[in-house]
């Protein structure tokens, strides 16, 4: 079972997440794309763990999941707060720092 297809799939998923962050306007969907990028990097970590024959890669992927969970909690709370004050979840509307 070769490792290259897994790594290429991981690269493709990371790219799709990246394009999503750049193109989507809804803050929740942007956040989902960030999650997609984190997941893609996890796949690469697990694959490299298999290539090297030790479990350090899997431990790293586990830590990425923990950090992602913490990040989602705080990020969604921020989106909720922004929505409560501005009645919109669009990333274009929260531009007060520009002025």
């Amino acid at each position, binding site marked *: 079972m070769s490792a290259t297809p897994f*790594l290429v799939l991981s690269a493709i998923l990371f790219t799709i997440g990246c394009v999503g962050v750049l193109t989507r306007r809804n803050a929740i*969907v942007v956040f989902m794309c960030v999650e997609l990028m984190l997941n893609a990097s996890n796949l690469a970590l697990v694959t490299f763990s298999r290539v090297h024959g030790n*479990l350090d890669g899997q431990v790293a992927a586990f830590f990425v999941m923990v950090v992602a969970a913490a990040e*989602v909690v705080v990020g969604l709370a921020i989106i*909720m707060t922004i929505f409560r004050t501005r009645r919109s979840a669009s990333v274009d509307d929260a531009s007060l720092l520009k002025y």
Partner: protein
Amino acid sequence: MIAFWVLAPIMVLAALGILVVRKAVHAALLLAVVMISLAILYLVQDAPFLFAVQIIVYTGAILMLFLFVVMLVGVDASDSLVETIRGQRAMALVVGVLFGVTLALGVAQVSVGAIAGLSEANSDGNVEGLAQLLFKDYVFAFEVTSALLITAAMGAMVLAHRERLTPKPSQADLARRRMRDYAEHGRHPGPLPNPGVFARHNAVDTPALLPDGTPSEASISRVLAARGTVQSAPELADDIEQLYTGEEDEK
């Protein structure tokens, strides 16, 4: 390897779907497809513990959180198609495709060498092996993680908490406000009209008809109107007529 070739196209299609669907709920469901497929790929790659964690933490907890927020933020919070920076979408696509092609080609050309495999590392069981690493080599990182989780939980509580800045309006205040609205804007002080109730269709998504035959906007929920699922009463009337004549024909 069969699992990979079955799941990889599904994952890529679902991920591309996230880029194009309009509604956030659909994006969340497509993300669930990607995450469950990833969990199966972890299982294929000798990582049963991460398989379980991926399903429990990602599809179980994180996606539920996303769905909760989509529910709270509302159904009318779909993406706007207006570009604030002209040409940004096209440029992002071009840059993204270039980035992806470079990354994929680079990864594909690198030779990762012979695959050691995890049969030796997993000889005592995958969970035991991970626990050995986690509580010996990575124990400091593990302890820091607990601080991070507590900070995140506290942060979410602080952000979600709302202090009441004005006193709660009493029933007398509300009545006074209704009468003031009536005096200043001519708004009807009584309750809102019921949604339309017809012999065939008794539902909240049908607007009530005013005496002049026009549907009343105030009789239906704002959320239903935003979702675009409101039935038009005159159309329903045509439908009834059609049904009636159809029955006549059968007779």
